[in-house]
């Protein structure tokens, strides 16, 4: 190529660059969400429908990338004191609320003290007890003083766990009935435009977003479509562009139809989830370890992976998800292979002979109707060793009441989400002080001082290697005691039309970098 041609070619490239990027700016993305949010204040609830939408309106101090590694968001940098008791965040200089006011350290302090530590269930339970105080010595400096080193801190500060809200809006009035809950003012990539309940939430591009060049989309519309079948048909017809969650059984309908399918371990609404059977240890039959071992040996979890998840996931190898590799104990459950003969022997030994109809005894299982296929498979598998299984379908409020408040159940099938750190989502399942009316706490009513000690020690040190040792030690005990039977780790599948790229389904702010291609 001659030098002249080279120069011309380079000129053409340079000159066309703005047009190329202009092509990728603009457009509307229609996102289908299964339930109506009710309101849009993410600091007073952990409800997934609220977080799915509000994550695009607000920011956290930090954001988490696909691997769960902390990245800057409202905080451009942070330093942790050597003793782990002081964490200092420096805020970005040019972040502004959608009404034009600057985002300051006072907003951060106010949000934690008045909203998150009072009303955000996970942050109140998982972070507030570790925090001594939050100070705002300068407009752009936030200092967390901790009572003890708190390892999961950074993973609890993204927009899903700790969205930052404007003090000048929320300082007055009751946070639970605040008018701004229905017309939120955030700092995020999209501004609130309108909300019609059970219909749609419309957000528009924030032209003054502090992350230069973002977002690319002009409008982000969330359509509430409760019926999964309607969602799939609307996506295929191009009426919607993005499905937050696709059931494994529906994935095949979307393959080779101009749809991008991405599997993640999490996002708004939970991450690193393990489908888990909880035994009520206060019921005499199930208090017998032989019975629990027999149930574990009778179940073929590979069938669950194949027939229910269509291979989109893994058979659980340990009580802690493989998505948290530094705490996960590979092969922890290897001592419990599928063995119906062993199950039969254990049940005989435990004093449960088969009756005239071949049944030894029957137990109930409380679950959501969406988990029906698990119940069908488990009923077949347990029937082979003479255990009858009666499915009891309940909704979220019913499960909370029957299982956690009244403890009126034998077993329950729950998707326990581990979160990004075992201190957030795992400890609650096993801690003996966490048995009670709060949904998804210690359903088994498992009490083990040694396990309590390991979880407490692991939460109170910053050293990941030491923490991992404690978690692995706890898992060895849990694998031997079987207060739960961990079934499968389900992938979460998100789908969008090929006309788009750059969605980040693992993030609370999933559309920040999304582009419409044509």
């Amino acid at each position, binding site marked *: 190529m001659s030098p002249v041609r080279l120069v011309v070619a380079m000129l053409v490239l340079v000159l066309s660059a703005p047009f190329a990027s202009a092509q990728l700016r603009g457009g509307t993305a229609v996102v289908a969400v299964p339930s109506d949010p009710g309101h849009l204040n993410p600091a007073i609830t952990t409800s997934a429908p609220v977080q799915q939408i509000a994550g695009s309106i607000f920011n956290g101090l930090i954001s988490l990338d696909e691997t769960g590694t902390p990245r800057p968001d409202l905080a451009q940098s942070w330093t942790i004191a050597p003793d782990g008791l002081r964490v200092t965040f420096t805020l970005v200089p040019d972040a502004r609320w959608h009404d034009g006011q600057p985002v300051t350290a006072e907003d951060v302090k106010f949000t934690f003290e008045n909203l998150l530590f009072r009303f955000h269930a996970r942050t109140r339970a998982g972070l507030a007890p570790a925090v001594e105080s939050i100070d705002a010595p300068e407009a752009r400096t936030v200092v967390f003083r901790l009572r003890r080193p708190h390892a999961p801190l950074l993973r609890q500060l993204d927009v899903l766990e700790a969205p930052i809200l404007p003090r000048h809006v929320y300082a007055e009035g009751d946070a639970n009935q605040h008018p701004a809950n229905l017309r939120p003012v955030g700092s995020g990539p999209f501004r609130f435009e309108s909300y019609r*309940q059970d219909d749609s939430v419309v957000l528009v591009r924030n032209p003054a977003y502090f992350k230069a060049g973002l977002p690319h989309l002009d409008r982000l519309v969330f*359509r509430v479509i409760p019926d999964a079948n309607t969602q799939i048909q609307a996506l295929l017809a191009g009426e919607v562009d993005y499905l937050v969650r696709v059931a494994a059984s529906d994935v095949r309908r979307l393959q080779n139809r101009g749809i991008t399918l991405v599997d993640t371990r999490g996002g708004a609404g939970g991450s690193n989830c393990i489908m888990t059977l909880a035994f009520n240890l206060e019921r005499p039959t199930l208090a017998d370890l032989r019975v629990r071992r027999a149930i574990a040996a009778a179940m073929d979890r590979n069938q669950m992976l194949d027939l229910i998840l269509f291979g989109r996931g893994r058979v659980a190898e340990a009580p802690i998800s493989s998505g948290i590799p530094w705490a996960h104990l590979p092969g922890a459950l290897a001592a419990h292979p599928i063995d119906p003969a062993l199950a039969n022997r254990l049940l005989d030994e435990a004093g449960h002979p088969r009756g005239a109809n071949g049944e030894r005894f029957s137990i109930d299982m409380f679950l959501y109707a969406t988990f029906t296929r698990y119940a069908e498979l488990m009923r077949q598998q347990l029937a082979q060793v003479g255990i009858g299984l009666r499915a009891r379908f309940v909704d979220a409020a019913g499960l909370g009441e029957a299982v956690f408040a009244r403890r009126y159940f034998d077993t329950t099938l729950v998707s326990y989400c581990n979160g990004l750190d075992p201190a957030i989502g795992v400890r609650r399942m096993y801690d003996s002080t966490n048995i009670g009316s709060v949904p998804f706490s210690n359903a088994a009513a498992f009490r083990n001082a040694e396990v309590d000690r390991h979880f407490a020690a692991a939460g109170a040190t910053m050293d990941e290697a030491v923490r991992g040792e404690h978690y692995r030690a706890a898992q060895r005990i849990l694998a031997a005691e079987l207060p739960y039977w961990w079934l499968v780790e389900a992938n979460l599948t998100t789908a969008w039309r090929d006309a788009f790229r750059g969605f980040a389904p693992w993030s609370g702010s999933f559309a920040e970098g999304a582009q419409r291609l044509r």
Partner: protein
Amino acid sequence: MRRLLIRRLLLAVPTLLVAATIAFVLAHLAPGSPAVALGGDFGAPGLVEEIARIQGTDRPLAVIYVEWLLRLARGDLGFSFRAQAPVTALIGDRLGVTLVLTLSAALLAMLLGLLLGAATAARKGGRAAVATFALVQALPVYLVAQLLVLVFAVGLGLLPIQGLENPRAPPEGLAGLLADRARHLALPIAALGLGQFGFVALLTRARLREELGRLYVTTARARGAGEATVRLRHALPNALLPLLALFGSRVGALVGGALVVETAFALPGLGRLAVTAAIARDQPTVIGVVLVAALAIVLANLAVDLLQLWLDPRQREAS
């Protein structure tokens, strides 16, 4: 007639009060509470109790009931825990969609049912028609909705699959808005209407056949009246009266069907409001929607009674 109207309206008050009280008791008997539903699913000691205190749901049920009754007397349906707004406002927002949906569907069912019922009322044959009407009547509304979507939206691409409007291109002007709404509501109305149509057609056919055997029909025919005149002018009005009463009793089924249709087509109507509120144990909203549904049934039956009175001289004289 006016006395009757006043008497019936006064009678409606205790009816509604009983319906509302039953709804109140049932809503509060359901396991779980709005505080647990709002508090989320992670262990935060004291959180649920604090929310219950703020909501006032931790007080004795009798106190809540009396307070709710006093509010109701002033026409106030209370405050929604979930939506953080007055229940009357929530219902007002949703009423339009559900009214258009149910009234259009009722009209469609009535016209189509009368027409096809009358057309197939011939003395011979008609078994196939009866079987078809019975089948349509027996199909679950959800299935009818899915079939309509498969044929007209997915297959032929004529109509949208879901929603009230196209979010990518909001309609402009009143004409555009009406056209867009009509396109979006066509399938929901058809799904809901078809569910009621079979019933009307079957009844019309049966009633008409009964009337066609009567002497006055023979007289009309003897006078040389055409078959269409005989059926539509002479027999149909007489067949219609009991039909009207039965249609009043179908309002409940219509409201129930609206709930299914609103869910299948993702429409923001009263049925969806009731479902989301029930899941969140948002008792004031659930009770409010039940009250509105009960009111609709009472009013529909009253309207049917008055219409009957107006149409039937015998009843007019009796009253």
